[in-house]
């Protein structure tokens, strides 16, 4: 009952928006902009043809690959930069210069280097995810409360134990926040990257629908699916935040 009550306001809000949209399309007698019903029909079409899952799958695969690569490289690099002062002073300026360059700006170079296959979007996803991961992780190490390091020092533990049982668990909540942020950006970027090249994916679906016969019902259907998938991805990441390993951070 409580759950229903929690989602009820947002459902009402969505219904209201759909109603306004519908009314506007009918009122303006638009022939090209679709009504909500037409969008739903278009989605049903995609499902029937089986192409919807292919597009979603292709986009998710690219995001997954680029994102995991970014975590695999960004987390260790961030830990190292956070822990070793020399590493931070050497690498941080570089990270801060590369970070504000939008992954979209890299598209021409990506195509030049990796062509129009899967590698280009994976590379762009990687770029978009790796910097937030590095920055959050290094910052997490910097903000570990000194008292924990001091206590570990006092017990004379080995460096390995210090890292595994103090530094990494202490930073884990920050790493997960970083991962959530970068997955959101990654999803944003994959769709944009697919609009420019390739033959599959949700971004491709949108551009192709417009180019091949102004199918705006499919365009909007694609947008809705992108939004819903993004929401699902975010809720998966939120679930990570509730893991027992990081529960201490959010209690109290």
């Amino acid at each position, binding site marked *: 009952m409580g759950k229903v009550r929690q989602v009820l306001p947002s459902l009402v809000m969505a219904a209201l928006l759909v109603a306004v949209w519908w009314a506007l399309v009918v009122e303006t007698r638009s022939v090209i902009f679709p009504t909500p019903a037409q969008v739903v029909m278009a989605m049903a079409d995609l499902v029937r043809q089986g192409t919807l899952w292919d597009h979603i799958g292709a986009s998710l695969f690219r995001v997954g690959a680029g994102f995991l690569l970014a975590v695999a490289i960004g987390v260790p690099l961030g830990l190292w930069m956070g822990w070793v002062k020399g590493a931070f002073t050497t690498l941080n300026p570089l990270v801060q210069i590369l970070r504000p360059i939008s992954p979209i700006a890299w598209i021409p170079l990506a195509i030049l280097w990796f062509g129009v296959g899967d590698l280009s979007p994976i590379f762009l996803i990687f770029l978009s995810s790796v910097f937030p991961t590095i920055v959050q992780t290094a910052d997490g190490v910097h903000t570990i409360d000194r*008292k*924990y390091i001091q206590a570990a*020092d*006092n*017990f004379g533990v080995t460096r390995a134990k210090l890292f595994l049982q103090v530094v990494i668990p202490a930073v884990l909540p920050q790493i997960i926040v970083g991962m959530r942020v970068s997955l959101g950006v990654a999803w944003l970027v994959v769709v944009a990257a697919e609009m420019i090249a390739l033959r599959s994916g949700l971004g491709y679906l949108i551009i192709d629908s417009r180019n091949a016969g102004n199918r705006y019902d499919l365009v909007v259907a694609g947008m809705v699916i992108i939004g819903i998938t993004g929401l699902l991805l975010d809720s998966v990441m939120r679930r990570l935040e509730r893991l027992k*390993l990081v529960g201490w951070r959010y*209690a*109290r």
Partner: protein
Amino acid sequence: MPAKIVVTDITKSFSTAKGPLNVISAINFTVDDGEFVAIVGPSGCGKTTLLNIIAGFVRPDRGQVVVDGTAICGPSPKRIVISQQGSVFPWLTVRQNLMFGLNGHHPDKMALADRYVSMVGLKGFEKGYPHELSGGMLKRVELARALVVKPEILYMDEPLSALDALTSLQMRIELRRILSEDRHTCVLITHDVDEAIHLADRILVLSARPAAIQAAFEVPFPHPRNLLSPEAVALKVAILREFGL
């Protein structure tokens, strides 16, 4: 018998935006093996700084700390600090916290940890996380984590001052009970004169900043102590007079 801890001429100042801040000026004292020394002083006088220096976390500007005849140059598991803010790892369970410090060879670390968990009265909470415990229980975990490694010296920085009066009294009694079973040399920092009289063999009174030893009192009463006895009350009055009260 030579003293366990010999503190000679410790001096420390911090550089701040408003110039150097003298925190500790030429402190000398010794602690015998197995002795319990309490150091009381007004708030902000430099007690935590003094303890950090004695424990080896902070280097003094001048002077040295000698333990068992050798000058210390850093912290050691033989001398465990119970810090003022508490440093139980929130991401480890109670049991894992206790096992954290067990680095050498122990036949059964978990059994040893659990024995100390029950020694501080937390049986049944071995798998609990710190955020599921009360402030008093957390202090017990911290104490147990220190005791389980069998340190020769226990340094305590206001371990009970965040607790309510009743819990604090309970903890004092338990600490005394534990110390009668396991022998440790103890240095206790506190601003609570009652606590010092209750626990210590000797009390050093620090002056306001920069901290210097202003007076020393022996506490010759046998345990368990009665803080309302005329002698205890007289001692308390004498110590409070040092603070100008």
